[in-house]
């Protein structure tokens, strides 16, 4: 009987630990962050070193962050949403999920990349790059891609992976870039051709470049930072840019509406800090391009100076997201299922 009691009380102590620890240890700010664990940790550590503000992060995908802060609306659990394509933030702002904050230093940022009401703050730029596997290209006897149209070349049958534009910012920026370059009808015709070559639509935008790195497929579209990360690990990934010009993503961060006061303060401080030189250097260390011109990562391998960028209108892209995705789903994806 005595033993049983001891067991029960040990269990009770354990349980009370589980119940309370979540609340008690939640000092500082909680951050939802879709970058890699290393990148999230590095940026927040730089923030702490500079300002003394403690932050812990939960790493989940950008779409999942939006679903989660929507579900937590009545009682937000996190103060800051760090990184992710501006489209997601535009959507969140339209649902009043974000707290406006005019970041100090926002004047240094090209006004095309900012939200007029300051509901979210741009933090970096990520151009789209084509990734290819030289080994697979050799096997199928193809050349590296030079144009968006290369992806539709029949030589790449079952050799292309794309992220699904609904779940991946990378894929959506690519789709919106093609539409802005060629006009909507030709762009969708091209997408239908590309779809014939696609072997798998992935959820995450990084996954296709991982498949290229492992010589699983020939071609993928990616953000430059993903290819930099693969190159830094030693993967022999080839890369090229479309001659027509490439699109890019505006990365953003935002304070979450109605967060607890301490969290809200931390988030505001972060949004001010991220546009300082130190903040931009911390973002640059993750291989994302600076939003405040000037900083350059000395370790970056991809030279962007000669790359042609299109005048990507991401506000248009954000506002037309639902419509383009629906058309994509109906015209491209499900056409494919029926074939």
């Amino acid at each position, binding site marked *: 009987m005595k033993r049983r009691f001891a067991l029960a009380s040990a269990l009770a102590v354990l349980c009370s630990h589980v119940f309370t620890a*979540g609340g008690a240890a939640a000092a500082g700010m909680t951050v939802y962050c879709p970058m890699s664990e290393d990148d999230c940790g590095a940026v927040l550590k730089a923030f702490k070193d500079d300002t003394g503000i403690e932050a812990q992060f939960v790493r989940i995908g950008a779409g999942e962050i939006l679903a989660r802060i929507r*579900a937590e609306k009545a009682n937000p659990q996190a103060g800051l949403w760090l990184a992710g394509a501006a489209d997601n933030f535009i959507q969140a702002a339209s649902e009043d999920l974000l707290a406006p904050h005019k970041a100090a230093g926002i004047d240094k940022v090209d006004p095309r990349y900012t939200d007029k009401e300051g509901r979210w703050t741009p933090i970096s730029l990520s151009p789209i790059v084509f990734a290819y596997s030289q080994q697979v290209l050799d096997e199928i006897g193809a050349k590296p891609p030079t144009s968006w149209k290369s992806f539709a070349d029949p030589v790449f049958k079952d050799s292309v992976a794309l992220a*699904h534009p609904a779940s991946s910012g990378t894929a959506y920026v690519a789709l919106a870039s093609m539409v802005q370059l060629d006009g909507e009808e030709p762009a969708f015709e091209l997408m239908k051709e590309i779809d014939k070559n*696609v*072997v*798998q639509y992935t959820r995450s935008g*990084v996954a296709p470049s*991982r498949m290229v790195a492992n010589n699983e497929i020939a071609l993928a579209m990616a953000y430059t930072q993903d290819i930099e990360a693969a190159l830094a690990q*030693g993967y022999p990934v080839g890369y090229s840019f479309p001659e027509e010009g490439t699109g890019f993503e505006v990365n953003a961060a935002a304070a979450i509406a109605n967060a607890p006061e301490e969290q809200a303060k931390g988030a505001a401080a972060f949004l001010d800090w991220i546009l300082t030189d130190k903040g931009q250097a911390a973002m640059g260390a993750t291989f994302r391009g600076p939003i405040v011109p000037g900083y350059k990562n000395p370790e970056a391998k991809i030279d962007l100076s000669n790359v042609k960028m299109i005048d990507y209108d991401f506000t248009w892209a954000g506002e037309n997201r639902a419509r383009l995705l629906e058309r994509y789903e109906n015209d491209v994806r*499900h056409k494919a299922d029926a074939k």
Partner: protein
Amino acid sequence: MTLVSQAAPSARAGTSPAFLRKIVVDPWLFGIFALVTLSVLVFAALPIFVVMKQAVVTDRGFDLGVLVDTLSQSFVWTSFANTLMLGATSAIIATAAGFLLAFTATRTTMPGKTFVHGVALLPIISPPFVMALAVVILFGRSGLITRELLGIRNANVYGFHSLVLIQSLAFTPIAYLNIRGMLQSIDTALEDASASLGASRWTTFSRVTLPLVTPAILSSTLLVFVKSVEDFGNPMLIGGNYNTLAVEAYSQMVGYFNLQAGALLASLMLVPSMTAFLIHRYWVSKRSYVTVTGKPSAQTIRISGGVVVPLALGCYAIVFAILLFYLTVVYVSFTKLPGVNNTLTLDHYATVFTAGFQTLTNSLLLAGIATPVTAVAGMLIAYLLIRKAFPGSFLLRWATLLSFAAPGTILGIGYVSTFNAAPLLLTGTAFIVVAAMVVKNLQVGIEAGSNQLRQIDKSIEEASTILGASNTRTFFQVTLPLLKPALFTSLSYALTRSLTTLSAVIFLVSANWTLITVTILSQVETLKLGVAAAYCSILVFVVLAILAVMQLVLNSASKR
């Protein structure tokens, strides 16, 4: 040997005085029943209804129009058919494999039984993505088998065939454990009697053994079917253009920001699962499978000789396939850049050890709490449902099934939405993660317990109550010990599933309570396959060690 049809329980026809009498006779048990039902309703049914409500209730109020709009799109029905096809195929293959393993392990003289048993259980410990990654590494375009061994240059692993392979392997242990538990508890005197009366082995098998394990076969098929329907990670990673409801529901909710369509697709997923469950229940509840009668039983006659060879070969083939998959993962954890640079290295383990084991300890602690709760609650609920038909037990039955059939994403989003405000403010705590783990795995405990209970003659329990023991005491001292094999099934299942769950908890983890599966996902998504494989290998090793200890403890407990 025929199966005796059970007389309809008299209380079934119950007028309300009969119902009331049941409560008055067992006030304590009814109290427990009420408590359990309430908890299940709050933690299993409520969150799912909160999400499902959104399928028809939009900002503009109740709206059937959107429902019709969504249902009229062809992709909904394509993915519905895909889901059914995949679920049925995987369920049949996994159950057949599970039965082969269970029968050969318990009834024949196959050499190497302990080994086969150990390996057959491995796939329950499948951290997310492990199987899919192994398939790609083995059979992909740069696959070790397809390219290096066979010289195939353009293998395409994406699609239905890979999904069936992965799901069959991953879910075989569910069937194996379930059927094995039942085969072990069948009173072998029946088979011995059949044999000594001159029946051939085949007759004994087809007329005695097979009918007696039918409940376990059916419930295994059901469990695997439901698991396949709600599987999200594999179709997402390797399904190619073969879209299932779970994937479509996820992309509608998280990708298109369309909660309504997502909720509707998720509700559609419940239809095949619930139907399968109804069919199963109708079939099983009409027969009696009582074999454990409290009378002494003789020793088993083991099947030996020529017939064992094909059975054993089948088992070895399954074991080989499973080992191949897991060894691939271990191999990847020691290679520099899997598929590109196959130099052996310890770097990935160095990374893991430097990063520390906070997430692993979190996972172990939370799963450690969830496991006994799941197993005991599962047995208790099985007992309440099968032996005590209290008024309102249908609520309990359907609520638990609902939570099992609902995809993890829905449960996760439902939990965040439901438990984010007083009086049920749980977000950010570890409790919410534990609750999700328990609810997600409860049904397996209930199934295992129910199957076993159907075999145990009521008279054993009646003897206990006639001798003056209370019903509560009878449950804990008589029924529960008899349920031991089922208890082990659900303990090991609950532990491993809790440790490897991802889709439900990804919405529930907080900065203080991150789990190892979330870390693995993060490594996979950032190309660090070696590190991910190292985490997986460590996780599998730890789980194996725990299972071995659990088995030892249970064995020594039963010898006393």
